[in-house]
């Protein structure tokens, strides 16, 4: 059950990574990084239950918070770029 979830999350991570690498616009990359961040949170949560270490949820919580801060920074980065470079 958890293993299937982990594999699904990994596949989603691969797709997000592909988008971050290919671009082509800044928005694609930002969305890809956002998605990658949430998938990391999920992967750690799933792996925590998979290995019987549910306290990893603490870690997942931190990642979620950091992800929110990053997201705002990226809007800032975009603002400085005035729409961003292609």
């Amino acid at each position: 059950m958890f293993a299937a979830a982990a594999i699904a999350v990994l596949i989603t991570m691969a797709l997000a990574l592909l988008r971050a690498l290919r671009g082509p616009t800044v928005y694609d990359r930002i969305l890809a990084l956002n998605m990658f961040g949430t998938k990391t949170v999920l992967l750690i949560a799933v792996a925590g239950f998979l290995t019987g270490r549910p306290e990893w949820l603490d870690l997942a919580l931190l990642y979620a918070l950091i992800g929110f801060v990053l997201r705002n920074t990226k809007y800032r980065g975009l603002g400085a770029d005035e729409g961003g470079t292609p």
Partner: protein
Amino acid sequence: MIPLISAALFAFLLAVAVAVARTRDLFAAAMLTGIFSLLSAGLFTLLDAVDVAFTEAAVGAGISTLLILGTLSLTGSPEAPPRRSWAPLGVVALAGGALLYATLDMPAFGDPGAPAHLHVAPEYLADTPEDIGIPNVVTAVLASYRGYDTLGELVVILAAGVGVLLLVGSGDGGGGGERALGSESHVRMREKLVLRVVARRLVPFVLLFALYVQFHGDYGPGGGFQAGVVFAAGLILYGMIFGVDEVRRVVGPRAVEVGIAAGVLLFIGVGVASLLGGANFLDYSALDPHDPAHGRHLGILGIELGVGVTVASVMTAIYYGFAGRSRRA
């Protein structure tokens, strides 16, 4: 299952590393280094190095990306076209080859006979419950058994912070124009109603979480380093949405500069207090003459607080420096 996940993460890591080296768009490179940090943090978690993963997520994916983007807003995003030359490639190949050669001498992964598992680690693992009485051995090693090393790390952070502030300035010079990194985004962010509302609700919880990480580091993953970074990230988030001047009113630049030194002083002060109690420097058992374990626990809380204050102050001061710099530009 775990080896499969690790292998997949390593494959991603390799792909991201190659992409970071190849891309000419620095903004994309900043995004990709963020992904790189998240991947490393995931791998550290799978290796059960939860405290390291915590630090990697907070420092690597959080503050570093924040500071890289702050630098980019001062310099611009496209990288200068590279000059083709073979000498750097040769140097890199040589250094890489030497590192690979060095790995041959390292013990195999998970080898129970590795020096790391035989030297002092068994002692620390066996003695921590009795000596200090806290479950997180990482905190015990970092803050008590290896207190000198941690003091050294903190002084390095202090020196690095002072160096960066000397380079970018502390951010209070220059007339307060409307073009400040903070207030400029303030205008733009004002339209982003969702962000403003969510951030206003979320920032107190980010700060609360930082305090939890700070004072719960002896029972769960975390400690002063991670807490300081999370706390600073909360302040920076607030500054980026409501303007840097709003944060400066809450935490003045002067207070931040004092905090940088105060944290190190608190750390050293705990050490001196144990000296005055008749024990060695940073031997906290003297802090409570009746119960050495309790004294050590107190000492750990004290120095972790010092670490947290200095780290949070350095990060916030650097943010102020960047904000003041773009105001003058």
